[in-house]
């Protein structure tokens, strides 16, 4: 009896109290604008230009991407300003690409804006970061008639693929990891706009929180190989080892790297063993007709080894003179150092570092034609 009464009372209370509830404040899905790409341009020390690209799904709209641009000092206040122009609520759940122009990377505080995004729990880990030549806003605003939309294009361009394996594919975690880790210097892919196309044509190497140098894809490939990436981009080589000018292309199948340090940070020595396996996909030069026997191939391998050792050695020498360590070579010394490791120690060590290289190439096949 009591239970019955309780049921009836609670039923009425519930029905009547519904009138007191507040209106639902949640934003329906069609009113949410999911930012896909963001771009930052440098204006001066305090100001930057923030551009966001939001996909437009409405079939009535003429363009399939909405672009908003604003001059601001803080990222979040910029977003608030953009919301004033936008018909939708801006959220970051689908953020995929962050572009930063070269000026910003060299003079601005890129770490601060990325840290702001990293703090935001909405932002996933798939956000890819890239440095852009000249103007990042222009890249988002430009027309790419043969692409579905700028968002897809940028994202696919920056994602890992075998032919651009020199690209470090730095995502938001990698960026925060390398910029806060004293043994690393951050690397970001560098994009340039050429007509109606975008091109990843290099890698920006940071020193501390600022961009320091732009390096070529071939050199960036070395960084990837030394930091232990297994699948690398095809390797293009110019040989000049007693057989005149030779050009060859090796499709790399697998590379393994082993680093042995002498554990001494006063006079650091590092020996690097790099083993690469690949197929000779194209060859142009004097020896073309001879490359059918295993002996001649092993001779070619030796020449390739020498050439690679020279190229890589020169490149590492250059990095050492700049005191940057994008491949994390100083980790081999930190592993054996007791006490706190600092960025200054890395700089000091890299300047003094003496590197010995052993490259071992093996060409597994030259295709099916004899």
């Amino acid at each position, binding site marked *: 009896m009591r239970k019955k009464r309780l049921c009836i009372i609670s039923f009425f209370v519930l029905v009547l109290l519904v009138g007191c509830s507040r209106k639902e*404040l*949640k934003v329906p899905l069609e009113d949410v604008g999911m930012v896909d790409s963001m771009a930052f341009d440098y204006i001066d020390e305090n100001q930057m230009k923030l551009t966001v690209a939001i996909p437009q799904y409405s079939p009535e709209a003429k363009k399939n991407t909405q672009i908003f641009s604003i001059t601001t000092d803080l990222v979040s206040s910029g977003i608030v300003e953009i919301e004033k122009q936008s018909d939708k609520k801006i959220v970051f*759940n*689908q953020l995929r690409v962050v572009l930063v122009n070269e000026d910003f990377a060299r003079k601005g505080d890129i770490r601060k804006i990325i840290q702001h995004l990293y703090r935001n*729990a*909405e932002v*996933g*880990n*798939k956000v890819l970061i890239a440095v852009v030549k000249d103007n990042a806003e222009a890249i988002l605003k430009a027309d790419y008639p043969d692409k579905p939309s700028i968002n897809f294009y940028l994202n696919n361009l920056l994602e890992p693929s075998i032919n651009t394996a020199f690209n470090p594919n730095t995502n938001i*975690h990698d960026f*925060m*990891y*390398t910029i*806060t*880790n004293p043994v690393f210097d951050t690397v970001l892919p560098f994009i340039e706009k050429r007509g109606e196309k975008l091109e990843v044509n290099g890698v920006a190497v940071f020193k501390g929180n600022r961009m320091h140098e732009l390096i070529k894809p071939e050199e960036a490939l070395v960084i990837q190989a030394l930091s232990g990436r297994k699948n690398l981009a095809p390797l293009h080589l110019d040989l000049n080892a007693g057989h005149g000018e030779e050009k060859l292309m090796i499709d790399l199948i697998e590379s393994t790297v082993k680093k042995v340090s002498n554990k001494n940070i006063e006079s650091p020595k590092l020996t690097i063993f790099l083993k690469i396996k690949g197929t000779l996909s194209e060859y142009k030069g004097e020896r073309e007709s001879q490359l059918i026997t295993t002996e001649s191939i092993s001779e070619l391998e030796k020449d390739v080894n020498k050439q690679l050792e020279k190229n890589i050695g020169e490149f590492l020498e250059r990095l050492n003179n700049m005191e940057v360590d994008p491949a994390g070579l100083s*980790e*081999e010394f930190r*592993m*054996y*150092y*007791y*006490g*706190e490791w600092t960025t200054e120690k890395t700089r000091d060590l890299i300047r003094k570092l003496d590197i010995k290289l052993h490259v071992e190439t093996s060409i597994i096949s030259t295709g099916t034609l004899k």
Partner: protein
Amino acid sequence: MSTTNGKVLNRYHVIFLAQSIMVGTGILSLPQKLSSMGYAQTFMPLLFGLLATLTAFAMVWLCSKFPNDDLFRMNEKLLGKWVGRLINFLIIIQFIVFSAGIISNYMHLIQSTALQEQTITLPVLCFLLLLIYIVSGGIKSIARFSVMTFFITIWIIYFTRWAIEKGDPSHFFPLFNFTSKEFFEAIKQGYFSILGYELILFYFPFIIDQKKAFRHSLIGIWISIFLCFITTAISVMYYSEWQLKRVEFSVLNLFKAGEFTFIERIDIIGITLWVFLILSSVTAYVWCAKRGVDTLFTKKKKQNYPLYVITIIIFVIIRMPFSREFQEKLFLASNYVGYLIVIWPVFLIIIYTLRKKQVQV
């Protein structure tokens, strides 16, 4: 005490009670709590495991001298009625605040990651309703819930796969690279993450096979320790030292490293599953608090109202109008009192040996 008058806990219950109570919110922020040691924190959970084994041995030894009494009764017997009751009262308050701390910590996590646009009142209410439901089933229903929790949640370890792939094992070296100051700071901050096994002091009388209780709870303890070890090891591999220090819930960011094409936020799955772990540890604490109230006021035994009162107090503590700062201090204080409870049995053992003759059971 509605259904649990006799001995009800078999060995699996004992294993998983010890295991599930330990994994509360602690493991979520363990790498951050230990971050004063930087990369050298990897093996800290194993050291904690040793400490836990030692203290658990003291607890079980004491319990085996009073096979039918829980800590509340032992306090009364060993310290006299009034001192014992005072201590019991403090323990009850401690458990209530501690549970409130765990829930509040979890709700803070939900607020900052999953439900950013909502207040947490409704989730807290739902949580407390479930809590009442489980606790009123007695210790056996909590134990069963713990077993279920373990098997429901253990597979989320799989989600750390990508972090392992990306991580760098060289971070483990050099081993033992820390100063004594960093070490003690890490113990102080981190040991709280593995608290929970001390509740065997309260459910010991319900264990069927009391002689093997120590071995069974050790299995549970070391399962948890192993999970903590995996957590710190993967975090050390995946993060830089700066990130270890700053990323508050580092385990969730480990899940974020996941690369499924069809799902963006694996961490949300992790958080929502975590509610099982939180429930299993909070229910055990609340059950102990309720036992305490029952022993303090022994007039009407078979009633459930102390549970409702406790739940309301917890709700008030979580939603209380005090500042966030005061709340934090309160919960921090209750963590340190938690350490006291771990050491308390050692003190009682000393008293027991001194007053052996007077307190024969």
